[in-house]
């Protein structure tokens, strides 16, 4: 147990330089790189006074080292600055408004991808080097090559435009949420908590197409991972030993899957970054009011502090998820746990 605690502490400390590096990279991209963001975003035609005013508001007219220190200190204090437009709300508050939508989408997309990936990967692994396997391998390549907006639009065309059985955009029918207070911001979960099953149903209907789109495209990677691990695990001694104990094939497969899953878990941190990239495209395609849609909207309105804050938030988010995945892995695998 002591070893586990040490591992968690060390792993957590390791996150600090990674976050720090990412913050520095974001700083360099947004402020030091040639081209200045405000001009690039507003366009050359804007009057110079206007550009100057925006720069001052965003604190971009100070020397780099001062900017950098302020930037890092702000983040450490949890101060992401204030939006430059409209209500000038704190950036963090705006981010937290949009985060649940993205999280809900990624959770469902992830579930779809892992289900498809586990089934196809297991079949391919069990039937390795057969026609079934080749077909599934082809599937994984095509799924990977699918462009998310395109797949999404094809779904919109079929289920929304022609069959008219599913909503093609948004998170929920606006009328339903009038006077309804969310708890976590995840509509399905909140609906269950507050007993509003009409909301649960409606939210699920809105989730189907986006999460299928995201899930299918990401499933290809899991098909490959599961297949490779299955082949590896199935050839191990304990599988033959399990059969020698008279276990049914289903039980043997359960032993195999559990063991094949551990290495996949270690890949999930990286997979999460891919999931977020996919979520940005899915959100745009389905007018999903999450972080991706939010970021793009603010880029359009040159809300500089919000753009920076959102990207910084993504950096921290990804690092924390990586940390959590690694700790989870240590907790699940008994060989590390004890």
């Amino acid at each position, binding site marked *: 147990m002591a070893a586990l605690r040490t591992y968690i502490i060390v792993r957590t400390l390791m996150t600090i330089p990674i976050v720090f590096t990412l913050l520095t990279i974001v700083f360099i991209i*947004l402020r030091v790189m040639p081209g200045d963001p405000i001009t690039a975003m507003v366009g050359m035609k804007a009057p110079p006074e206007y550009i100057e005013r925006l720069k001052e508001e965003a604190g971009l007219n100070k020397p780099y080292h001062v900017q950098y220190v302020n930037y890092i200190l702000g983040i450490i204090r949890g101060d992401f600055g204030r939006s430059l437009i409209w209500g000038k709300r704190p950036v963090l508050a705006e981010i937290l408004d949009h985060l649940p939508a993205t999280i809900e989408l990624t959770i469902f997309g992830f579930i779809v991808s892992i289900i498809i990936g586990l089934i196809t990967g297991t079949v391919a692994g069990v039937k390795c080097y057969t026609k079934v396997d080749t077909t599934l391998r082809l599937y994984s390549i095509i799924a990977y090559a699918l462009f998310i907006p395109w797949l999404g*639009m094809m779904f919109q065309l079929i289920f*929304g435009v022609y069959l008219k059985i599913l909503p093609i955009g948004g998170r929920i029918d606006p009328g339903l949420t009038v006077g309804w207070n969310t708890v976590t911001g995840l509509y399905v979960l909140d609906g269950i908590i507050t007993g509003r099953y009409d909301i649960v149903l409606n939210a699920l209907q809105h989730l189907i197409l986006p999460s299928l789109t995201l899930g299918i495209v990401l499933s290809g990677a899991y098909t490959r991972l599961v297949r490779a691990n299955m082949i590896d695990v199935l050839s191990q001694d304990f599988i033959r030993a399990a059969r020698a104990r008279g276990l049914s094939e289903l039980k043997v497969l359960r032993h195999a899957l559990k063991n094949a899953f551990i290495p996949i878990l270690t890949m999930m941190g990286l997979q999460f970054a891919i999931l977020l990239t996919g979520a940005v*495209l899915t959100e745009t395609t389905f007018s999903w009011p999450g972080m991706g849609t939010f970021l793009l909207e603010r880029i359009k309105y040159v809300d500089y502090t919000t753009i920076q804050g959102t990207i910084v938030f993504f950096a921290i988010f*990804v690092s924390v998820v990586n940390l959590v995945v690694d700790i989870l892995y240590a907790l699940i695998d008994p060989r590390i746990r004890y």
Partner: protein
Amino acid sequence: MNIGFELIRKMLAPWLKEASLMLKLGLAIVITIIALSITAPLLTQYSPIIKVGDALRPPSTKHLMGTNNLGYDMFSRILYGGRTVLTVVVSATLLSMCIGVPLGLISGYYGRIVDRIFSIIMDSMYAFPSLILALAIAAVLGPSMVNAIIAIAVVYIPTYFRMVRGQTLSIKSLLYVEAAKAIGARDLRIIIKHILPNLLPTIIVVFTMNIADAILTEAGLSFLGFSVPPPTPDWGADLRAGHEYLLAGYWWLVAFPGFMIMLLAAGFALVGEGLNDILSLRGAEKR
């Protein structure tokens, strides 16, 4: 010493004999699309950026893939769009290879503090969602072809870095580099003559797979409005433009550009897979 070159020769020359179905299929797709975009002027009489007919016409013999909301011929836009995509993607991938490979070599060969610093930067970037990184860069630089190339190139540097660094580490520990060191070869000579050739096969595989990924990132960037400015033909941008007309049922505006993105990305992924198969088979044989 020349296993690297040997491998490439074996990989490419008799590929017809050794190539798997995957490799053949992939090459067929890739070569066809490249050929189509090069010979675009011969295949279509229409310019991709001039109104050539009524707007929003469905596919017909006159306009094979219909016309868009501005009356541009979609078939021409698809063909010429291939040029845009291939130019951006191949330049970007080459650029990140030219930066990532040397950095990986230096990091893996010299180790120590240089390696630590490079590694942490590259690992951080690698863990960051690629499209968001590219988006940030493209947004700062402004929408243009060159800027899109830079944005995509930066995103993929860590891919090469990590692969090259890892392999350099293992090759370095192999005997013959030790021997070469002992007789006083210069570092640069060791890197170029002994390490690089062994890396080449893997670099080629990574390069091909990387192009497939970059196609999707380029499409993402232009779909979000951060690649070439309109009216330059580009599949991702066309998909975005067509999205507005989707509800009205103008399916041809989105079906073709998106399909081409998938086809080209799948083509390169298949080539990468096929090459990788041959490579790992050879590896297994040697063992």
